[in-house]
């Protein structure tokens, strides 16, 4: 499928304005969508790995690192500027990924999944036992500010909502353009046939290493925004169930488009909030059934991720 950068970026911009507009019209919608977009960023990171043929069951690690980095800056150094927190959160995620990636890039398939899960659970275990970081309770974040203006409290949830929308837009545009670069295209090539990639002179290890870091950055950013929106962080962010949710949304959304993770995430959050209200004890069952339905009956687009079948155009 030909990449049409102008049309695609145009579409994304339209969506951005539509989102912001809808947020203005439906203020009650803002919080949920902010969180959904934040998690969507995490899923976007996961999607990059999926397109490279790797399933990470541990993106929660970076999601949590982002949140805790932002939270710690606020808690211990009193910094509340949202952009500073964002940059710091992403930096921490990238640093950890740069180290872990050296190892992770050697693995594939179920071993990659297991190792990623192991690392996220290591962080979980560390945080639960960390009194300084609030152990299982975690701690709250102060209301973020941007250039001195408050982004919460009296200002409402709109500023943070806009920030989430803009970030999502940047991430979507960025990843879309990236996938059209020679290195970006290597993702599908690696997923299809690693041997051929090596024999054409590219280092699969290096390519995966880079993508692992990019995915971590996106997920970390998502963690920061989620933490700011919810105003609270706890070790659950690194628990394997959180990573499992990202995987679920990624399957639901499919890897066909950079917009899919956000759409899927919004659907997921809406469904979850409905379920929590009306039927909290069947939410997991619904998730499980939906996942089975998708796996069993919706191959092709949604499943080309794993079955190495024809990928959908972006």
């Amino acid at each position, binding site marked *: 499928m030909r990449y049409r950068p102008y049309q695609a970026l145009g579409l994304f911009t339209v969506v951005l304005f539509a989102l912001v507009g809808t947020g203005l019209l439906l203020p009650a919608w803002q919080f949920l969508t902010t969180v959904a977009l934040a998690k969507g960023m995490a899923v976007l990171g996961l999607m990059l790995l999926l397109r490279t043929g790797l399933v990470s069951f541990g993106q929660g690690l970076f999601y949590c690192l982002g949140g805790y980095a932002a939270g710690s800056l606020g808690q211990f150094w009193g910094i509340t500027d949202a952009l500073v927190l964002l940059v710091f959160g992403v930096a921490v995620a990238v640093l950890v990924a740069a180290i872990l990636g050296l190892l992770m890039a050697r693995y594939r398939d179920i071993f990659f999944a297991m190792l990623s899960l192991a690392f996220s659970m290591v962080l979980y275990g560390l945080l639960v036992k960390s009194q300084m970081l609030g152990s299982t309770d975690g701690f709250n974040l102060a209301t973020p500010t941007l250039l001195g203006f408050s982004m919460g409290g009296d200002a409402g949830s709109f500023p943070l909502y806009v920030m989430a929308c803009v970030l999502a837009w940047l991430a979507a545009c960025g990843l879309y353009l990236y996938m059209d*670069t*020679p*290195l970006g*295209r*290597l993702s*599908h*090539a690696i997923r*299809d*046939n690693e*041997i*051929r*990639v*090596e*024999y*054409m*002179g*590219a*280092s699969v290890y290096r390519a995966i290493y880079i993508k692992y870091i990019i995915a971590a950055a996106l997920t970390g950013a998502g963690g920061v925004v989620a933490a700011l929106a919810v105003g609270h962080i706890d070790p659950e962010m690194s628990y394997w169930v959180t990573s499992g949710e990202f995987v679920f949304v990624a399957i639901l959304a499919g890897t066909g488009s950079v917009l899919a993770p956000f759409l899927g995430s919004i659907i997921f959050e809406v469904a979850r909030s409905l379920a929590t209200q009306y039927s909290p004890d069947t939410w997991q069952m619904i998730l499980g059934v939906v996942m089975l339905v998708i796996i069993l009956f919706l191959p092709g687009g949604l499943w*080309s991720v794993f079955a*190495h*079948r*024809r*990928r959908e155009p972006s």
Partner: protein
Amino acid sequence: MNAILEARNLNKRFGAIVAAEDVSVAIAADAVVGLIGANGAGKTTFVNMVTGYLKPDSGQIALEGNDITTLRPRQITRRGICRSFQIPQLYDTMTVRENLEIGLGILWLNRRRMAAESPAAAGAGKAASLDAAAQDILEQFHLAAHRDRIAGELPEGLRKLLDIAMALIARPRILLLDEPTSGVSADEKFDIMDRVMTAVHAQGVTVLFVEHDMDIVRRYSQRVLAFYQGRILADGSVRDVLADEDVRRHVTGA
């Protein structure tokens, strides 16, 4: 002879199996060499060692005098040795054109690195656009009509062609073809080899190809290496080797 590729005393065992025993050969630039031998005789092992997939237990391989024995496949590719595979290694979910574009993209990524080691390849990387360069190769191989077909859905003959085309993209100096016509129908075989050889001669590439089909070997090679139980049984012109008694007994069965 000015050897572009030289193998010296290569040995390789897999447990009790002798895949290569004291294999030594010097290949001249622009040569076209056929490698023959029964299955398991050591032809593919030789190709695997030259392309870095296997490391010989002992011995050296030199490219234009430089030792490449322990290099990995991607490093060897960057130095100008490319190969095709017995079972075509393609990106099955992508179109023919996209398959080639990936290769060109990799060339571009490696452009600085390759400029030092393989000027011809670096030149390829600077093509006006990926599109134009891919189109060139598609045309050379008469694949242009199929450019938007999904690689995984192509018939075997076209898959083989694409596999070889992918090997040629990087403008290698040495091309190794592993059974280029196996699995291909009899009437297609010559067609494929014709197209390949035309493209190859246009680029001035040294070719080694592994083949079981003696007609192909007779028609296209200038020199033949016959393998048997890991050793080189005979090495010489097509006529001499194919007439050799040992070769007839152990390889061609003629």
